[in-house]
């Protein structure tokens, strides 16, 4: 669809845009404690394994402070039901929102820049209802709320970022692990594409560099990987339920590389390799010092709740 109000974008960029970068409050501040931990919880009670995984890495209280404004980024991109595993599991979103509230956050915003019509995806994914029920605000991303920002990446420089992301104190990233036709997998780093606007369709030509640019800029306070269901083929939106397997697994870490490396290990032979080093975006992220790919190393904890 034609973008709204080109005229206004110029206005906003000219008159107000210059003011916004300076207003960035806290998304870049590193987490209070940066424990070298990696938590994995398995079990059929989704809410319980979300709580357990977060608890393993120190509990939500070590990431969110009293009075914080927190931006939660699930994947709400596609007009698909939760069973189709194209969007983050609504129970996961709901539980994360509750945990953040329990940690004393002032305000929680849950949103995504969607591929299908947001009115449909927010509803069909079950995320709007679940997150609002748990006490979050779930707005649609409106064009006027994007502000031009310098991401300072290797390929991404000036780009539109959703204003609420810029003004939030913390970003909690809750991707769902999925197959992806172009990059083989889409995990925590690629999920951040939903925070930006503009010509996202151009990013696919340099996808590894772009997602690492996003990870380096936004530095989510915590990544919680949903693999309650895993989309192992025809991603990122899937085709039939045959593409979905149940893994009942949640992983949590501050390290996006470690999370993505763990995600890669979940796919088995559904993808060409389970070696993180074989994935260009992992190589790129390690090169830039964003984290480490031996997810099962130091600080790895796994609990099976059954």
């Amino acid at each position, binding site marked *: *669809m*034609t973008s*709204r*109000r080109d*005229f*206004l974008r110029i*206005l*906003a960029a000219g*008159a*107000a845009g210059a*003011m916004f970068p300076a207003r960035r409050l806290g998304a870049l501040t590193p987490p209070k404690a940066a424990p070298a931990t990696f938590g994995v919880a398995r079990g059929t009670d989704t809410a319980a394994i979300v709580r357990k995984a977060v608890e393993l890495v120190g509990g939500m209280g070590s990431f969110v402070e009293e009075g914080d404004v927190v931006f939660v980024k699930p994947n709400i991109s596609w*007009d698909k039901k939760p069973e189709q595993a194209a969007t983050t599991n609504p129970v996961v979103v709901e539980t994360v929102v509750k945990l953040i509230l329990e940690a004393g956050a002032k305000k929680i915003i849950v949103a995504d820049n969607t*591929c*299908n*019509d947001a*009115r*449909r995806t927010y*509803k*069909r994914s079950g995320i709007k209802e679940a997150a609002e029920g748990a006490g979050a605000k779930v707005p649609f991303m409106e064009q*006027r709320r994007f502000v031009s920002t310098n991401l300072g990446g290797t390929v991404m420089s000036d780009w539109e970022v959703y204003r609420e992301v810029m003004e939030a104190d913390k970003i909690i990233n809750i991707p769902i692990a999925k197959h*992806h*036709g*172009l990059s083989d997998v889409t995990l925590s780093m690629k999920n951040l594409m939903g925070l930006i606007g503009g*010509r996202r*369709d*151009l990013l*696919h*030509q340099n*996808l590894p560099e772009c997602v690492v640019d996003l990870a380096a800029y936004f530095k989510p306070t915590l990544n919680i990987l949903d693999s309650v269901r895993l989309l192992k083929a*025809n991603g*990122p*939106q899937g*085709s*039939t339920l045959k593409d979905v397997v149940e893994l009942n697994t949640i992983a949590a870490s501050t390290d996006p590389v470690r999370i993505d490396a763990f995600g890669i290990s979940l796919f088995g032979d559904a993808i060409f390799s389970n070696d993180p080093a074989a994935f260009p975006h992992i190589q790129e992220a390690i090169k830039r010092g964003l984290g480490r790919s031996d997810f099962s190393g130091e600080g790895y904890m796994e609990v099976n709740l059954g």
Partner: protein
Amino acid sequence: MKNLRRISQILFLALFFFLLIQTEYKGSSELGLPVKFFLDLSPLIALSTILATHAVKAASLFSLITVVVSIFFGRVFCGWVCPLGTLNTIVGWFRMRKGKPTPTDGRFPRLRPVKYFILVFILAAAVFGWNTAGILDPISLTIRSLAIGYNPAVNRIVRVILDSAYALDMPGISPAADAVYSMMVGTVLAFEQPVFRQMIPIALIFSVILGLNLLAPRFWCRYLCPLGAMLGIIGTKQMMARVDVSSEKCVKCGCCNRTCQGDATPFPPGQWASRECLVCYNCRDVCPVTAISIHPTMQRTGEGNVDLERRWLLSTGAAAILSVPIVTLGEHRERVHPELIRPPGALPETDFVKTCVKCGECMKVCLTNGLQPTFHQAGLEGLWTPILVPKLGYCEYHCNLCGQVCPTGAIQLLKIEKKQKTKIGLATFDKSRCIPYAYNRNCGVCEEHCPAQGKAIRFTDEESVDKRGRAFILKKPYVIPQICIGCGICENKCPVVDIPAIRVSPINESRHDARLFL
């Protein structure tokens, strides 16, 4: 009575606007409201569709209500119900306030027959398969003009104002603009700014129709409206609301003619034209000596109805009939136009064009703004019928709203499962523009977005070398025609935005066996 009539007009106009605004996705796959209610009330749409398609649809029967009411009360629909009539009344007030009108001011009695000739043209052409009713039917005209012409313009203006205020980023102003915006979106404003081809001409035509009220009150209703003509003829011998002017009491002041909305000439006595009367009660309410009464009577009290000369009626009918073979001759009938992607559920083309009344409801409700009015793509006979323009909006996989709102069944309401298997076209790669083929770089946006079950776009992997000499896997997309339904999301999302590197055309659409080539 005049005030009662005004209340009725305002209530029906409010209902009309409410239903028009509700003709949008509101968070539920089922629209749930009878948004085509006013279209169903029009016997002109019903009759012309019956004549053109030689079939009676259940929805057509609803308009019998209007017919029955008109038989007994005359053009009470025009005076009390019709939304365009009410809009005309409102604009007419601006004229009334200018100076003092004379008894003959704002009257063009010689134009009164025009609407009957328009009606004859519409019905005669419909019999031979050219359905023009929707172009001039006041309900269809109003919905189309407001949905495609005025609505985008109003949305644009309100958004520009509110967004400018928001972008000021000033305390007080920005939050206020934000609050107003949030309140208006989804209630009176559309969810996204609508964009329509031909917005300006369609809005201008309607503006001219409204502007004509400055020449004569309710100019359209008096002289041009084919539905008004039809209801006038139906109600010629109405007995329930006849205007009776007492010759003894009349002081020949002419007040009644001055305030008459329909140019029905209550004065002089005995010249009242039942077919022109809109039952507005202005004459009775204005008469200083209460010489006028409006009441049920079996007695016919004089006729001032215009004579329709038979030779002109026959000429008009003949012209209409002769025009049918002409408008059905053209390129569009020889070969399908590459842009003629009809919405899923559309009847085969010739039936579709006969059945569609160009009301624009499907375009208004379309989730992605992809349904647009045709200009030349379907010939003159198909002017303003809907086509999908994938560059502006694609057909949403889980949506069948257009079928839900179509008043005539030109777009059949398909169950979602069936809709998802209905081919409306076929995607084709332009390998000279497609990024992996033409520029040796990966892209894959089309494949990512393809919703078809089993994926109509897939990759072949090819080992390639980039400009720095590094080996990489080039993913070349291709289309599987048996799976592609032509929804157009690939064309819509293609990064090559000017002439997309993957484009949908109507070949292979399933409503025509002859076009299924793969």
